[in-house]
């Protein structure tokens, strides 16, 4: 598939622009700080003692400051939902960038790890130099107490060293538990270790308090490199020195040194307060338990939960709402949490039930819900033509879309919706069979049959069953066995919608989303641009 420039720009342009900006900011900050310590007059003596290790460690520290402040911002999900929802950012392109907030957070996190490695290595070299090149001339500059002090002792007895060790350990724990494998299998490990971030930030703000690195305050009176009272100009031995010049090069006074004020709090406190406020707001919002209205068990290990919550407001495309107050979720029972949850909601029928079982008070667990948060699927209504591709349980974000259309399809910009749902087994289609048929019938009644194009695929070709119910005829007549052929499908959609921008929304396994992404970036003879939007679970 040939990549077309226009499609690529539409899909990837914004992301790569932000990436370039971020890389540029990091590079500029690194170089600026490096040159400051390399050439700055106030660091002349310190540089002579420590060498390049000083410049590299300070430069990487400033990059770390930037990234530690940026890493929190994409995780303020309520704020991002607000920005996305109120259309404060009116361009759809910019709103699509909000979809990539988690990727940006990961990028900042990875750069924090890399630059921490650089920073720690450079400071280890610094500590060795502090110990080995202990300065008798400028005792205020030293971190070591005497020449040749064991560097490990220096690290453990200064605030900077000790806090640095703790920071690295916390970062190590957070980093190793956030790999894809651990998140997939044991999400709690990831969640609880990642919440150590607050300890990380508190220690980070204290990290510079010890004042290990000092700068010279009196550069005019004592130009660095000037001759001191007990020195003679031994450097230029071959040349003759005028008496006057010798006098000028004498120092006016002794060099004075002061440590830097900790600067990290300037960078970090804003985003940290914002994020803490956001978490507090989410906690308050979710402190009201929901009332569970119905629990329905569907085939293929899915349960549907309908709930009621006070003051619950969801925009179209965020949550399936029947009337304005009840909303529902579908969840697939895969791991231990969902299994335990299902056991609490639907107790197993006891074997010793009498013929007339006593009506037992159903004791549901107390359930707290956080949200709703914005998602890429909200944009379905802002295109003229949209394609929704769902794989298995990935259909749940689109259930909201279907509910919203069922409520009133005339109010949106959307003129046509292609709905492709691929499942492994036929029974899975029962999860939303009623909803799909209801929408289909409604649109036929209101004389817009071309609005909703449904295509269902069953990928497992053996053990064929069939949906025998008469009321599900619209589904059985649109059902095909075997995997969909995406290129042909896109060609067909392209031909019917020439020179338009079509929004493609995908929620499903990686294989499908990769194929669709490549197809959206490839060139089209029909002149249609496909904009790819992905919704992911973890």
């Amino acid at each position, binding site marked *: 598939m040939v990549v077309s420039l226009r499609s690529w720009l539409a899909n990837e342009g914004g992301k790569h622009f932000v990436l370039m900006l971020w890389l540029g900011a990091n590079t500029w900050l690194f170089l600026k700080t490096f040159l400051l310590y390399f050439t700055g007059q106030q660091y002349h003596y310190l540089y002579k003692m420590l060498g390049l290790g000083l410049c590299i460690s300070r430069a990487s520290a400033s990059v770390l400051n930037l990234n530690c402040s940026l890493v929190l911002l994409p995780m303020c999900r309520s704020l991002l939902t607000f920005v996305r929802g109120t259309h404060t950012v009116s361009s759809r392109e910019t709103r699509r960038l909000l979809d990539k907030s988690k990727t940006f957070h990961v990028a900042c996190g990875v750069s924090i790890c890399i630059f921490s*490695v650089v920073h*720690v*290595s450079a400071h*280890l*070299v610094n*500590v*060795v130099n502090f110990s080995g090149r202990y300065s008798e001339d400028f005792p205020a500059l030293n971190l070591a107490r005497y020449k040749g002090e064991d*560097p*490990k002792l220096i*690290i453990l007895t200064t605030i900077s060293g000790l806090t640095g*060790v703790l920071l*690295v*350990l916390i970062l*190590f*724990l957070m*980093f*190793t*538990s956030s*790999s*894809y*494998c*651990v998140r*997939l*299998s*044991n999400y*709690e*490990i990831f969640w609880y270790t990642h919440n150590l971030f607050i300890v990380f930030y508190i220690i980070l703000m204290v990290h510079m308090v010890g004042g290990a690195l000092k700068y010279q305050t009196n550069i005019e009176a004592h130009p660095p490199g000037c001759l001191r009272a007990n020195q003679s100009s031994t450097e230029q031995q071959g040349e003759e020195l005028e008496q006057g010049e010798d006098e000028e090069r004498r120092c006016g006074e002794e060099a004075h040194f002061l440590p830097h004020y900790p600067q990290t709090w300037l960078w970090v406190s804003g985003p940290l307060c914002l994020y803490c406020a956001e978490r507090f707001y989410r906690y308050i919002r979710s402190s009201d338990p929901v009332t569970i209205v119905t629990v329905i068990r569907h085939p293929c290990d899915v349960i549907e939960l309908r709930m009621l919550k006070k003051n619950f407001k969801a925009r179209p495309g965020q949550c399936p709402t029947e009337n304005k107050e009840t909303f529902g979720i579908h969840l697939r029972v*895969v*791991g*231990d*949490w969902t299994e*335990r949850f299902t056991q609490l909601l639907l107790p197993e029928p006891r074997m010793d039930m009498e013929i007339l079982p006593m009506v037992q008070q159903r004791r549901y667990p107390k359930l707290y819900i956080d949200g709703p948060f914005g998602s890429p699927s909200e944009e379905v209504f802002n295109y003229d033509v949209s394609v929704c591709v769902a794989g298995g349980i990935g259909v749940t974000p689109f259930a909201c879309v279907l509910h919203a259309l069922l409520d009133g399809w005339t109010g949106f910009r959307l003129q046509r919706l292609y709905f492709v749902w691929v499942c492994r087994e036929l029974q899975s289609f029962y999860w939303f069979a009623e909803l799909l048929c209801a929408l289909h019938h409604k649109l036929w009644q209101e004389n817009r049959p071309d609005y909703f194009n449904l295509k269902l695929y069953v990928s497992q070709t053996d053990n064929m069953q069939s949906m025998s119910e008469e009321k599900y005829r619209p589904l059985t007549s649109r059902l095909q066995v075997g995997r969909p052929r995406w290129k042909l499908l896109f060609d067909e959609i392209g031909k019917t919608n020439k020179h338009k921008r079509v929004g493609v929304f995908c929620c499903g396994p990686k294989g499908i989303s990769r194929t669709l992404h490549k197809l959206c970036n490839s060139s089209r003879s029909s002149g249609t641009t496909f904009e790819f939007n992905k919704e992911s679970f973890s």
Partner: protein
Amino acid sequence: MGKIEWAMWANEQALASGLILLTGGIVGVAGQFRGWQFAAYAIVAGVFVCLLEYPRSKRAKGTSVERTGQYCFTVCVKSFGPLTRNYYVRGSLHAAICVPGGFMLSTVLGCVCLGISSIIYFVAAIRGEHWEPILPRKEISREVQDTVKNPPQNPPPRPPPETRRKRVDDLEEAAYDNPIPVSE
């Protein structure tokens, strides 16, 4: 906290610690710092830990995600049998390996990280986990379905030869009813 598999997290940590130990060892040897012999040891220890921890274990429940190209490592690690299966052994091994790293500045970090992962391996071992190799599933060879099933051994039931013989003179009488009804 549900059924958490601690070994998976310990594995990620041990692999990262092995890399940190290796890096610290390389820096120590390259800079020829004091105590560089410990750094040389750290290089060897780091490589060994990385090789041991590269193959992921199979999960007790759910799908296991392999690391790229881990099959040959799986075979090597599997061949040590109970030494590598048991997590008590692994935890003690890591605890023992990490100790010499604490004597040199550049390898201290690797030592501490490996120590943490050995603690988590002990937690995993107490909870009864063990290492299972991820082996490729043998393809269940579907036997080629015989297109021709066993041909019938017996001839179909027929009336005695006298009735069967074609009696050209009397065709009406020659017709007979099949004893077994022939369905459409």
